[in-house]
């Protein structure tokens, strides 16, 4: 087993454990901490996949901005930051649905080629050319949607709206 495979296995286990822990711990602030670790772990996976630009983007946008935004959401909606959630329990139907989804998807994995393949390294310059060339319209669409989202968010939270 190569060092890359070992690194992938470790990162995959950490990703799964932190994702489950984020959803099962009862204090919301701890949830944010777990999900922060999850985002950093995924950034490490992107670096492993030879996508350094995406790794840095993941660190900046997810581990940085999204985590702080979620923390801010908790801060302004709770009187006591560390108060515990009421236990909601694990519904048997959703749990069964999630397990069945996972089993079906893993069964579908059997159809994929089993051998490992080399991962190619790309220059970030090539990525930017691709992003602003053939995929330019998607980037423009993203900008438009972001602008609409900002306007909608301001409308939702402005004072005096009933």
């Amino acid at each position: 087993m190569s060092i890359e495979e070992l690194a992938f296995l470790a990162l995959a286990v950490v990703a799964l454990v932190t994702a489950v822990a984020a959803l099962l711990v009862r204090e919301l602030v701890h949830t944010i901490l777990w999900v922060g670790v999850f985002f950093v772990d995924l950034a490490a996976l992107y670096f492993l996949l030879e996508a350094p630009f995406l790794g840095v983007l993941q660190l900046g946008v997810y581990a940085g901005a999204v985590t702080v935004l979620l923390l801010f959401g908790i801060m302004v909606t709770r009187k006591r930051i560390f108060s515990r959630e009421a236990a909601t329990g694990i519904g048997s139907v959703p749990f069964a649905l999630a397990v069945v989804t996972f089993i079906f998807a893993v069964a579908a994995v059997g159809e994929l080629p089993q051998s490992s393949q080399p991962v190619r390294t790309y220059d970030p310059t090539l990525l930017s050319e691709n992003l602003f060339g053939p995929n330019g319209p998607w980037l423009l669409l993203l900008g438009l949607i972001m602008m609409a989202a900002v306007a909608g968010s301001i409308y939702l939270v402005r004072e005096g709206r009933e």
Partner: protein
Amino acid sequence: MTDLPIVGFVALSTALLAVGLFGILTRRNFILILIAIEIAMNATILNFVYFGAFSGGSGGLTGQSIAVVLIGFAATEVAVGLAIVLALNRLKGTINVAQATDLKL
């Protein structure tokens, strides 16, 4: 150049999707539901990156480009979601989605 198993990546993102789905269906707190959606979304983005990386040719670039756009979409979705959280908190005094039933007949 690195050698990594495709199956491992597919299994990982599938498991993450299942965890996200589980969270969306079982949690009652709006912020926890948002986090569960983010986990599922991250599984999707990971899918694009590694299928691109393993496809050869310029497929990796396309996969990474789509991933960049998707990360932007996910961040936008969190911003709008938190605006809804704040509005819900102002209207109801709680962010428990079980109590946001005003549109029920």
